[in-house]
């Protein structure tokens, strides 16, 4: 039995370690099977360096046509499963064809890697970065090992960040004016605002502020749009009277937001909206959606 198992087992153990693996920040990442693993975090223009060690199992030797490591930036559309689109692909040859009898360690380095897009794990699309080690063999399948890592890119606070202010309404029925203090929020930001009721002729039951994520993938006729409500935050309970102003204070930190992604490699976009919803006593919904931009602010 041992023999049999040995036959199907990979012939070697490949491990990928990053040179600053001990100090580098690790972030959780959800794998396809639903498990969450901790993976290192990088940002664009960083050096990605480390060691790859290949250790054949006892008494085995690996004959190969060469060992290489690739840094891949992939966009994976779920409706087009299995087809990865690599927008970044860097290769380092680690070894010339030969044989490996014992544990062998290769250092590697990708310096100042351009990683313009952030890792993203959406409903229909996934953008991921991965290190891929390939031991090519003449016979049998090549031995491959993957190491995911996450990329986050930080933006400075925008120089122009106007408030969103708008008056909406249904004639002779409801007029409100709302104001959000900014149009661009960072991930740990807080939305401050106010809703003024200029005219209320309907019996409002409550009012919520929703954060909606709109993920659109593909292009042209194949565009898939997926909208998720990430947050449903009750702003008001009961029917306001005319002239009332209701405060908004919504902390973004508890929600799993990502920065806004616009037209990533012509493949997908992720946009965020604030949706103000008023529900009347007959459960009719009146809403107004406003796009906000979310960015990642460098944590100090």
């Amino acid at each position, binding site marked *: 039995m041992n023999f049999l198992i040995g036959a199907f087992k990979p012939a070697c153990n490949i491990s990928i370690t990053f040179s600053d693996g001990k100090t580098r920040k690790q972030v959780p990442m959800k794998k396809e099977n639903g498990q969450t693993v901790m993976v290192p975090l990088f940002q664009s223009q960083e050096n990605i360096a480390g060691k790859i060690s290949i250790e054949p199992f006892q008494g085995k030797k690996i004959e190969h046509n060469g060992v290489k490591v690739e840094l891949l930036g992939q966009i994976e559309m779920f409706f087009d499963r299995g087809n990865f689109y690599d927008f970044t692909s860097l290769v380092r040859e680690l070894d010339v064809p030969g044989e490996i009898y014992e544990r062998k360690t290769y250092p590697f380095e990708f310096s100042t890697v351009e990683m313009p897009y952030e890792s993203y794990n959406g409903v229909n699309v996934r953008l991921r970065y991965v290190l891929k080690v390939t031991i090519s063999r003449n016979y049998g399948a090549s031995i491959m090992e993957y190491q995911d890592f996450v990329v986050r890119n930080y933006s400075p606070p925008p120089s122009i960040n106007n408030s969103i202010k708008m008056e909406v309404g249904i004639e002779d029925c409801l007029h409100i004016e709302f104001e959000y203090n900014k149009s661009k929020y960072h991930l740990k930001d807080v939305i401050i605002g106010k809703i003024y009721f200029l005219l209320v002729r309907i019996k*409002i039951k409550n009012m919520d502020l929703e954060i909606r994520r709109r993920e659109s993938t593909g292009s042209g006729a194949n565009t898939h749009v997926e909208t998720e409500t990430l947050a449903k935050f009750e702003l008001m*309970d*009961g029917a306001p009277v005319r002239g009332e102003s209701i405060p908004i204070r919504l902390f973004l930190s*508890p929600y799993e937001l990502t920065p806004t992604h616009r037209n990533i490699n012509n493949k997908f976009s992720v946009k965020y909206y604030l949706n103000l919803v008023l529900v009347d006593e007959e459960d009719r919904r009146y809403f107004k959606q406003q796009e906000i931009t979310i960015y990642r602010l460098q944590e100090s």
Partner: protein
Amino acid sequence: MIADGVEDEEKWLAAGIAGLQQNAFYMHRALDSNNLRDALKYSAQMLSELRTSRLSPHKYYELYMRAFDELRKLEMFFKEETRRGCSIIDLYELVQHAGNILPRLYLLCTVGCVYIKTKEAPAKDVLKDLVEMCRGIQHPVRGLFLRSYLAQVSRDKLPDIGSEYEGDADSVVDAVEFVLQNFTEMNKLCYTACQSFILLADPELRLAVGLSGLQGPAREKEKREKERSELRDLVGKNLHVLGQIEGVDLDMYKDTVLPRVLEQVVNCKDELAQYYLMDCIIQVFPDEYHLQTLDVLLGAFPQLQPTVDIKTVLSRLMERLSNYAASSADVLPEFLQVEAFSKLNNAIGKVIEAQPDMPTLGVITLYSSLLTFTLHVHPERLDYADQVLGACVKKLSGKGKLQDNKATKQIVALLSAPLEKYNDIVTALKLSNYPRMMEYLDSETNKVMATVIIQSIMKNKTRISTADRVEALFELIKGLIKDLDGSPDDEVDEDDFKEEQNSVARLIQMLYNDDPEEMFKIICTVRKHILAGGPKRLPFTVPPLVYSSLKLVRQLQSQEENPFGEEESTTPKKIFQLLNQTVETLSNVPAPELALQLYLQCAEAANDCDLEPVAYEFFTQAYILYEEEISDSRAQVTAIHLIIGTLQRMHVFGVENRDTLTHKATGYSAKLLKKPDQCRAVYACSHLFWVDDQDNIKDGERVLLCLKRALRIANAAQQMSNAARGSTGSVTLFVEILNKYLYFYEKGNPQINVAAIQSLIELITTEMQSETSTPDPAADAFFASTLRYIEFQKQKGGAVGEKYEPIKV
């Protein structure tokens, strides 16, 4: 249907409590294990039970109180968390992550309190944030309870003067601002709540009418009203908090607090709420503030809804001010300084003008309170009191007599107030509008009021000593003095009537002045009034007047000894003339017995004044009455004895007059119907001829004649009785005559001798032993004691003993 509603509500409440307790249990577990995340989660879930719309405020309150208790535990936990190093600012943010607004805000308020306690941020900022955030709850009931929670937990954390949270110079302003804002918002919510109740109640009302007849809606409405008032209590709490902020000084109250609060009250436009809040303002803030801001406060009243029960509120205000004034004399100058009276008076005028529909009761209540106020504050300003009454009269004019029971009761209270205050009707008599006020009472109440006045006089022993006042007084109590037009006599209870008239009689006795001139005037005035009283009253009122007059006569008589008496215009003669006329009125009643008594009293007084013609005239009148009016035999007996008694004491008459009168009296005596009465009257007449202290009236012969005649009558009586019943009557009459004999014998009447006495004794003994006589133990005892007397006199010895010696028993 309604019953179902109530049951459902019970069920919902039970479910709410169960949910709350369950989450509270998990929350406790989280608290015990210091698990902040779970604590927040379960507390938010627990508070979610308060999101229900199914409960009436009353039931909701029950749920709220449970949540309140749980939140105290959470607050303790938060406090410990911060001590363990958890940043309060983080905590403050963390609770705001809750998605549902109601739990979020409850938690926020709870953490907010801890925040203030840590003093990491100025109390005012935190409070401001809290009160602002609470705007998110616009649902009336939930909002009211949330804000009430805020008010309650923040109460000891206001940056008041002397509080540990006191910040910079203006911190009191912030505290006030906070409370005012919360109050404002709650007021708005309450208004919405009340309105939605009206809306809510409506379909239910219709339903109820269909299902349970007419009882349902009334009950339902009552329930709604009750719930509305419960909500108002929540709002009112803010005012209590405001009242407790020590830093609110008069200036701030005047400039900020009061105008803002009043603005809210005026804006809320709900009659009950306005009433309640005005009342709160009045009760919560100190009296001196009210006094100093009277303008502003009163200015708000006309702006209230026309249906607000202003009268009660204003009355309470005045009551408070009255008590304040009464509390110390030092504050009175303040009242004068702010011209409290005229302001209140104006305000009342305006309110009454603004609310033309106000029931009379309301008007009177208002004036009654104002009156109490002026009496307390300006006891010396009678003109104020009169002004109040005048205004009230003006309001009432044109409305005729009041039919409303409560209103009349109020008038009685209004009119009694000055009496109680001054303890002196004399002061009240100076109020020219007082009697005009009384005209608005129906005769029944008028009487009650009159009785009150009289009782006040009695109680305080007030002396009414001038004719003018008497005039005024009788004007006031005329309800008792005469029949008011249209009042139905026949319904008056006899006992009540007597009671009333007796009190009038007592009152007449209280009228007194040392100066005869004035006293005479008083008497004339009283007479004028009581003569209008009609036949039913005269028997009660004339006697005290007569006695009062006679008292004056006696007073004059004693003064006549001094030389100044000469110039007086009031002479006994004049009084007697008046008396004559007065007593004469009784003949119309008719009350002959009473008139006779009074004539005799007058005669006796005239006798003392040596006015023979007058005395004679009175006797004549008495005799005429006896002859013409007194026909009842029993009354005759009484009358004749009175006549004899009085006549016996008269010394003013000359021989001729006296003869005429005694002759008449004896004649009357002999003509009485029953023999025993005859007999007794006749032997009583014997005294008319023998007056012990007057030597000229000692006619022994006539005495004897009388006695003999009496004896004859007694005999005749015996025989009549024998003939009619077959047995002789008692010997009492004989014994009585024997006693007369003994009297005159003892007094030295020469005509009475031992033999006569002796034979009379024998006669009695024989009679008693005769077979036909009826045994009469009383008569036997009488006789025995008479004989014992004789024995006793004998044994005394001396002149008397000698005199009796010859009599053999």
